[in-house]
């Protein structure tokens, strides 16, 4: 049994018939081939799958694709515009916010969300803002610096 859904992902509308149990992350990764968002835990605890759904950061491993029918989704692949990196991406590069890179797409999406809601967050606000995203490599310090740098880049 499948169900037709339409999602606008990174500005492009996609219509597919999917099983109701198909997770949003698998729709993005396997149906659309957008493999930038990762599955780290399947339980919404690590945030590697973070994407924007109608402008809000969500963990796409814990939503069904059918729940998102009609929604607009932004993934890491849609963040750079016309080949120009988003300032959060640029800051992650400059500040060495990525090591193995597996958490990075989700971490960047969560960081963008922090700055969308609060253009000048304190260090504590940044740390709490990304506490739903696990990183095992960096100890978070360079990620915090990257978010600070991205905030400064807009100012």
């Amino acid at each position, binding site marked *: 049994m499948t169900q037709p859904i339409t999602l606008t992902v990174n500005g492009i509308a996609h219509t597919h018939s999917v*099983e109701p*149990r*198909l997770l949003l992350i*698998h729709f993005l*990764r*396997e149906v659309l*081939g*957008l*493999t*930038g*968002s*990762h*599955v*780290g*835990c*399947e*339980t919404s*605890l*690590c945030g*590697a799958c973070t994407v924007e759904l109608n402008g809000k950061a969500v963990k796409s491993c814990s939503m069904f694709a059918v729940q998102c029918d009609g929604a607009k989704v932004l*993934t*890491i*692949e849609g*963040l*750079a515009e016309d080949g120009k*990196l988003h300032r959060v*991406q640029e800051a*992650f*590069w*400059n500040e*060495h916010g*990525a*090591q*193995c*890179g*597996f*958490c*990075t*797409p989700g971490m*960047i999406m969560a960081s963008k969300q922090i700055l969308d809601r609060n253009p000048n967050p304190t*260090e*504590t606000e*940044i*740390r*709490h803002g*990304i*506490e739903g*995203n*696990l*990183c*095992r*490599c*960096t*100890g*978070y*310090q*360079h*990620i*915090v610096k990257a978010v600070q740098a991205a905030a400064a880049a807009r100012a």
Partner: protein
Amino acid sequence: MATTITKTETVIGKRIRRKEDPRLITGTATYVEDIQMPGMHYAVVVRSPHAAAKIKSIDTSAAAAIPGVALILTGKDIQKVAALPCGASLPGLRVPDHKVLAQDRVYYVGHAVAVVVATDRYVAKDAAEAVEVEYDVQQAVADPEKALAPGAPAVHPQWPDNTAFTFHQEGGDIEKAFTEADIIVKERIVSQRLVPSPMETRGVVALWHAAEKSLTLYTSTQVPHMVRSLIAQMLGLDENRVRVVAPEVGGAFGCKLNLYAEEALMSFVAMKLGKPIKWIETRRENFLTTIHGRGHVDYYELSAKKDGTITGIKVKIIQDLGAYHQLLTPAIPTLSVLMLPGLYRAKTMCADIVGVFTNCVPTDAYRGAGRPEATHGIERMVDILAAELKMDPAEIRLKNFIRNDEFPFPTATGLIYDTGDYAAPLRKALEIVDYPKLRQQQTEARAQGKFMGIGISTYGEICAFGPSPATPAGGWESATVKIEPSGTVTVMTGVSPHGQGEETTFSQITADELGVPMDDILVQHGDTSIVQYGIGTFGSRATAVGGPALYFAIQELKTKIKKFGAMLLESEEVSYTGGKCVCNKTGNSVSLKEIAGAAYRAMKLPPNTEPGLVATYFWEPPNFTFPFGAHVMVTEIDPETGAIAIKRYVAIDDCGNILNPLIVDGQVHGGVAQGLGQALWEQAVYDDNGQLVTGEFMDYTMPRAHMMPWIESGHTITPTPVNPLGVKGVGEAGTIGASPAAVNSVVDALSTLGVRHIDMPMTPEKIWKLINARKA
């Protein structure tokens, strides 16, 4: 031909942003799970819910009837696959037969019982759940000390004492040291089981090319060549027909320095089915079946003189091995023994290891691998000794450090420390925190009834694994450098980076040595059909062993470049500098691009010289390297909640010369996070039935951003003479230094209540109970 020499700016030592990052920050990197192939099938492993049981029956009929299911294999179907190898050899080591699927018994929760393959990942999961296994549950034992007790359930029935091996090493006259000691301090110190938890779990894509009898295996590993050799052996394939690729690897920390059942099993399935097979470990499976780290119960004794001079170190290590040996399981605690003397002059030691089977997933290498356990023990013992003697913990360390003029220093454990200035990082750290003032503040805080602690740890490491005779497989590393006909440079390294940034640092080495721009250099790794045989990335070795291999390959290539340069310049005396060959007499020069063109076009060749510009070098290190450092952690404890607030964290590391400070800082920060994770939050807990209670990120407290302090990291620089780059390795330093600094700090805070030791993790509950028990 140009006549002026342009000096290229050097890049070694600069904070250069990484070449790896553009693909990582745009989501375009390819990890194993991102690989898709036509006809791909998906595998799910059926696992035991019991820690010890006999398998009475397996019924796969319901699962096989589900549309889309292509293949189901159980233990009886994998007889052609050899057992998983144990790479460590110790005298008298008992090695259980480690099949890729359980045979008649299961030995730990998560033990693979069957594999189900289907055209769709969801269908494969449905079918795995439909496999019915009947178990006759046996009594399990999950605690290593309980496993050693008389009458304990036998993990492997053929070895009722649960002992896999014992190991003894001593140096100096230990009996004399303890007989003549003014003071002896003793403590039981636990280094608890940890779950390495890279953000990418394990995963495999296996592809069989039947006509060529060749296998391609994409796997998330630190050691692609080692996996190739072992997979070929296990499956009876020709090694040259097995291609192993470590694509983008999402973290490893030692847990992917291994050969796992699924790597061989999925290869076997691909061969049987003739379809590409994908298996991706779930996070739950990662907790249950990927190796754990640590798992020590250690009994320490330290002998000393009244003035604080340490005269002898004794330890009995009880190592929880789990149910099987993975690749290096029994070898890990022997590294603890090697590291036992720490940075101290005492040349008398005695160590005993008992390796114990338990009904748990095997332990093996996890960031530091044996060295954090030893450092934690010795650094705790030194603090306990200082407290007994009412000495300052900094002073007692300075008194016992090996002195600068004693290097190279032969240790009681048979190592030769290369070089050191052990007081320097400690003094630097103490200066940063203004130690005398800090102690003053502590006195004032105590007067107000507050619990403030200052914890010091000074650590040494054994890095750059390692000289081949001292390692289970070869310990050398390889590099190939190719100047392409256009003058661009391709480096192929035998190390297999997965976050450490060697595409950048190796480009820096190459850029400086060849005088070419960073962008003209491509570093390739991780694919056994592209890269010459290599050892891999672990044990803080990639830059410290792979870097020199690259350096020497470039030197060989330069000799050849100069021959072509001399030919083109029609000169006997040329030098190579700034990307050009220069005639020493006339100052005329030819660029590397011109030389490369001539070397491949080969219209004319220098005497006794072949066309082309390629060099390969296998470098055997003459010794390990021995980095060191000092951490200071300042804490304040809330007696109402037991919460530990980290007020300052200073980490001073000496990893020798630094190729890229940005990357080195990142390694230290991440290492400290894992060390603090152990000290404060993380613990793999098995209950008495062998059930893993902490089997998800919900229950296993990995550090999150808001839990971490700001790390003030810095360096002293003592280059090693072991390699021409003077680099020593930094991957594990933060982890090794952090846990004793943390425990020493909290014990210092609570010392006013008479507390002298706390085992990790120091959860608020544990601290709260401790405070309340002492107050009562």
